[in-house]
């Protein structure tokens, strides 16, 4: 019996398995969500427990415009994937470029907000529990935005050079999944920090 493999009779039904890229990204999103949950729990747990000011009500303003930018970039990245799927490479570049632009606006708005908080309101990560939890939660999200923007810019670069074909649809879709996740997390962060926390 040694050295024998199992009878390879031809399978009658079509053997179809899920795409490994999408499965892996789903797993990564699950793991990342757990990290975010812990930071959100810490944020919620410490709401109103700071022993000194400034408080969220005094210094935070609703970032409506930048939130709209970030959330609409979810749509544009989706259009980019469908454009690539239909082999419309020019449209794909356009949508990708728009996504990067919208993400960039969001990042710039966050940077401006932090500048305002640090230099005008005197709130740093060391100031109080609000500063600690605010900067770590928003910063963690911003880090994810930076990573996403980096990947999207790479994709844009390839797309402009003409290296992106409809064969790469699945890879771009995996990337868009990550970007959707980043946007979804922002909804949670927005609700917790700017609505519930104030």
């Amino acid at each position, binding site marked *: 019996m040694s050295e*024998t493999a199992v009878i390879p009779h031809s399978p009658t039904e079509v053997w179809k398995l899920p795409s490994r890229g999408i499965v892996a990204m789903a797993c990564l999103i699950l793991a990342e969500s757990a990290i975010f949950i812990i930071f959100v729990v810490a944020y919620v747990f*410490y709401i109103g*427990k700071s022993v000194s000011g400034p408080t969220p009500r005094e210094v935070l303003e609703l970032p409506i415009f930048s939130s709209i930018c970030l959330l609409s970039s979810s749509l544009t990245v989706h259009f980019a994937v469908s454009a690539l799927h239909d082999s419309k490479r020019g449209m794909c570049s356009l949508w990708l470029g728009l996504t990067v632009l919208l993400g960039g606006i969001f990042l710039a708005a966050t940077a401006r907000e932090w500048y305002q908080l640090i230099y005008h309101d005197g709130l740093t990560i060391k100031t109080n529990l609000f500063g600690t939890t605010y900067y770590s939660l928003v910063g963690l999200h911003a880090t994810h935005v930076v990573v996403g923007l980096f990947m999207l810019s790479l994709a844009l670069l390839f797309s402009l050079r003409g290296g992106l074909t409809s064969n790469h649809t699945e890879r771009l879709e995996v990337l868009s999944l990550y970007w959707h996740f980043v946007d979804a997390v922002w909804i949670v962060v927005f609700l917790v920090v700017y609505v519930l926390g104030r």
Partner: protein
Amino acid sequence: MATQTPVTAILDKTPASPPRRLLFQVLHDWLTTLDHKKIGLMYIVYALIFLVIGGLEAVLMRIQLAIPNNHFVSPETFNRLFTMHGTTMVFFVGMPILFGFGNYLIPLMIGARDMAFPRLNAFSFWISAFGGTLLYFSYVGGSGLYGAGSAPDVGWFAYAPLTAHVFSPGHSTDYWTLAVLLSGVGTVGTAVNIVATTLCMRCPGMKLSRMPLLVWLYLITSFMVFVTISPLTAAQIMLMLDRYVGSHFFDTQAGGSAVLWMHFFWIFGHPEVYILVLPAFAFANEIIPVFSRKAIFGYPAMAAASVCIGFISLSVWAHHMFTVGMGPGANTFFTLSTMIISVPTGIKIFNWLATLWGGKIQFTTAMLFAIGFLFQFLIAGLTGIMLSVSPFNWQLSASYFVIAHFHYVLVGAILFMIFSAFYYWYPKITGRMLNERLGKWHFWLFLIGFHLTFDFMHIPGLLGMPRRVYTYEADRGWMMWNMIVSSGAIVQTAGTLLFVFNMVRSYFKGAIAGADPWDAWTLEWSTTSPPPEYNFAVTPSVASRRPLWDLKHPEDPDGNYE
């Protein structure tokens, strides 16, 4: 009666490539490899090295505690010993050895050529390995600039505020955090790989309902890794922020909460026990049926019970914190959820017993260890139920009773099953059998040593001996018990040395195993031992849970009974 009808099979006639001779070439092969089998082996070897180190630390502690008023090591060294022992055994022995076996076996069992992401696999291994190296580098580098201590000494769960800069100056605690962080990255990487492999790389016919239970359990373990290791990573990031940037997450002076760290740590810490024990169950699921010569009893119930364990284990963490004072509501909830988890665990034990029942049991060394596991895991579970009762826990929390309980799980169940797995899969990995005679010696020595140590360790706990105590007075009545416990540790060491000797000797002199020495039924036994780089010359296709049974018994295929 008659022989069977002939069946068509594929014979691999590829000439074996000549082994490389030069040391540099061999090293280059191993450093650059993406082969899941080689990476799995590196995981196992690396874990074994740390097992020896962690074991030595345990022996040093037992020598220190063997007699009262002992000063064999200094108190500072003792603190470092128990911290490093715990951290090493959980993060750098338990996880890598289990992931090593997973890496090696999963693609073979589902008929795949490699893992889904071979490069990520190599990355995950190396980052865990460097994490372990960093942890032990603290013995040399920790005192460097500050002269404030070397290795971490805050205990393996590093409670706040002991980890604050004021109480742990220097970098010793940072070494702990960073090493654990690195190992966490590697663990999540491997878990992603395992999930993607099992879901996307199965050979034709290998439906989820036909996967070997080992693969099922690794799938569940990996899902648990995502939701438990990540919180630990998050908590470690917070601790790093506290220590480096000056934030106040666990700083009680600024309104921070030390209890929050406990919650975050144990949200990781308890499911972690199940992450470690589920692979041990996985080995039992493969080994017990083969040596009982029966199919596993209740395959769907086994898979479902494992999923249940996975879910329930996420809601039991605070039974580590009954003494914190969480209030009656939380105490009741965590007592009940902890008790409920014994139901799916009980289902598993009964299914293993039912698999043994009426079987033609072969008492090979692997099977002996598996049976030892079965009984010891039962006892560990029973003391676990005792500890889940919060009033009982108030008396015995942080005593040697708790130490005895969880070592019963970690050694009596997990380590026994790991030994069993070595005896079972060593022939597949090396092509040679482990010596059974030495194996039996190893089993009995280790069994006696184990029971000497950990049965008697319950008693000083009941008599009030706290964990992590450096030394004790002679009039406490703990002396004799500690002496027995320590002598048991020596017997276990002897058993383990015998095992190491057996592995080395059998590698050169063991009997040639052949492809299928145990007459087993899963796909890994259908290829040569050791398997070629590409695992299967032709991708197999399966029609039941035991493809090799179908091949060996075409008149009575398994598919009829599933």
